[in-house]
């Protein structure tokens, strides 16, 4: 699965950068969301993907039966997803506020505004 995921992650990164390079504010936001997803998937992929081996222990056992998927990257990605949302909310509101103040959604035209 990892080789296929390599292309999926690559595609997500390419799309996110392309969107962030657009001059429209809305497209920038969409690029940010894609970038956050791409980064999470990247970490998830390179730590090795396993089918049907969640890091859960059955009652009474001390180890997951039959092996396990690495739980540490999962813990990292879990917090990253939630933080990603917080940062996205911040970015979206910031961008909206910038738009309200400057009254311009073309990033190239925001260049010299210092307000």
């Amino acid at each position, binding site marked *: 699965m990892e080789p296929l995921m390599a292309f999926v992650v690559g595609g997500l990164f390419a799309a996110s950068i392309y969107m962030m390079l657009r001059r429209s504010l809305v497209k*920038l936001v969409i690029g940010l969301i894609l970038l956050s997803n791409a980064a999470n998937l990247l970490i998830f992929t390179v730590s090795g993907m396993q089918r049907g081996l969640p890091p859960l222990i059955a009652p009474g056992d001390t180890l997951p039966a039959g092996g396990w998927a690495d739980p540490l990257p999962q813990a990292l990605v879990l917090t990253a997803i939630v933080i990603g949302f917080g940062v996205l909310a911040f970015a*979206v509101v910031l961008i909206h506020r910038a738009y309200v103040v400057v009254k311009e959604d073309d990033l190239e035209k925001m260049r010299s505004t210092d307000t």
Partner: protein
Amino acid sequence: MLLAVLSGFILCTLAPWLTRSFGDRAGWLLSLLPAALFIYFLTWIPTIAQGEAVIIHYPWIPGLDINMSFLVDGLSLLFALLISGIGTFIIIYAGGYLHGHKDLPRFYAIMFAFMASMLGLVLSDNIIALFVFWELTSVTSYLLIGFLHEDKDNRWFALQGLLVTVVGGLALLAGLLMLAVAAGGEYTLSGILAAEDIHAYPFYTGMVLAILLGTFTKSAQVPFHFWLPNAMAAPTPVSAFLHSATMVKAGVFLMARLNPSVGGTDLWFYALGIFGALTMLTGSVMALRSTGLKAILAYTTVMALGTLTMLIGIGTEQAIIAAMTFLLAHALYKAALFMLAGALDHETGTKDVTKMGGLRQVMPITFLAACLAALSLAGLPPLFGFIGKELMFEATLGAGGALAAFTSLLALLSAIMIVAMAAVFALRPFTGRRKETPKTPHEAPLSMLIGPVTLATLGLVFGLFGFLPAAALVGPAVAAVYGDPITVELYLWHGINAPLMMSIAAVIAGLVLFAKWDTVLAGFKRLTFIDRFGMERGYEHAMDGLVAVAEWQTRLLQNGSMGNYLTTIVLTIVGLAGWTLLVHTDTPIPLGLFDVNLYEAVVAGLVVVGAVFASVTTSRLGAVATLGIIGFSIALIYVLFSAPDLGTTQIMVETLTVILLVLVLFRLPGFIDYSAPATRIKDAVVAVALGGLMTLLILAVNDVPVAEPISDQLVHWSEPEGHGRNIVNVILVDFRALDTLGEIFVIGLAAIGVYAMIRFRAEDKAQ
């Protein structure tokens, strides 16, 4: 000793409060500290006079074996005595000179910080500590020079002094570190002085040049001399302190300190000899064309610093004796002269010597002290300055090589001019016809006279009884600078010899010059080209250039275009990481087996197709919907590949993201692509480059056999130690709880940030 150095810093914090509480008497009260320090340093004389060098260690960070160490020998003790002794009078003097000034508390605070830095500088054994104190003197003297900060010129001159000395300080740091390496990793002065083979260091030339750049800028040697006269923007007590015994002598101190180990080479000899002699001549010529009392003194200070540098460079026994004698003599008379200049300025309201006259009757004590100090400056018997000057001539004559004739000639020329200027200083304001001055002059108060009178008298006492300073001060200092103990005897009468002839010639020629001074001055007035080609112009051009470069590179890098920033970052990553990937991956990256189930491939395909669609669609709603599809597909991938927690989280966040976009995004204007088609193609290439790099990286990582993941331990601990069967959760709330704590703080901050931005907007609207 630690207390002695640090007490100034402690008093620095108390001084403002004391000054406010004690008002007029604060100067006298505060002077008790330097006076006590002076007495404390005096008690060291018997020990040091026997040729001992004492090193005192204080553990600073014992765990790391870092000590605060002080080196007390003849040289550092001479400086410490000068700093605390003259400092005492300066503090008293400032109380009178700045009487009633609103910023007097601030003045005392900075002054004590400066004094303590200076003491630390001369007493430190550790060269890093020395450097820190060195820079502290630069910073505090910046504050002192710019004390009257309401004036634009003062700020400019203060900044000039700071920049010149700090640039030199940077070079000095490099030089000192090289020196430590050359001495075999020895970071103490005592260790460096004991090291044998510093001359064999392969980068010796670079090291010496770096150190000299530091000392030359600090001690105002040609071509960096211009900052010193400009530093006269400071109030007079500051000038008197900085230019007599402290700040500008720091460079001389360091050269003297390092002379035994670094000196003794042709480079040292010629660099110091030639630049010192040139500085000496420049200083005296510039003094001759000045009319301001303080300007005259400033340029004679440049002359004195040049002389000292030259003498250290010559490095013979006579030269070192001359240097230390001259150093002491200069500190005494220069501090006195500055304070007298300040008294004249304070009482008459003008600094211009040509506007004063006939003050002898109204200011008799000032006149007397001025005569004594000026005689010492001119180098006339029976004053201490005479001994210094005689020794200097003797040293230049015996300099050896081509330097003997060169330095002797320059020394004679500058001596002539200094005699003239000493006469100008002592006679012009006091004799002749009374002139109208802005203020009606009368004798200065006691606080402003006690210092100059004592110091000038000391110049006379030391001259008459040369054995006093010889045994106690100059001798041990010479031993420290020369590297071997030398018996020093100082006499006024050396017999009829060449130095005496030169002195007599200098005095006669100097008095002639004094008589014709007005003509000379008029002549100089016409030579305005000196100002146009001076070093100060070079400094101004350098500053303008620096600003221009800063503006240029800001425009280049900070051009305000988001796209440019991003493209630069992406291309840098692709270039560096891609290149590394290319170099370090030998075999073509294998794609491995595509062991993919159909439904997995469909989900993965949905993500990619969604990403492409979101990039090209012209419908905002379509893009948001596609984002949802991508998000839920990713959640599905998490669930399929053993991460149920991630899947759930992703679904929840995806839902909230849609809510967020509905609330905000749809209030933004349309979904227009403003770029031209060519730009889109360029951007697409950049984007695909990064995507491709990421793909290759994952494939390369996937190909590398992974070592045992560290998380195996966590899995084993989870149930027995963590009492939890969901290992991901145990990691989050137990094993890595501190990490998680940081993360929830980030989430909270983001929320507060959003709230604040929205609230500000609401308030804006309300207004």
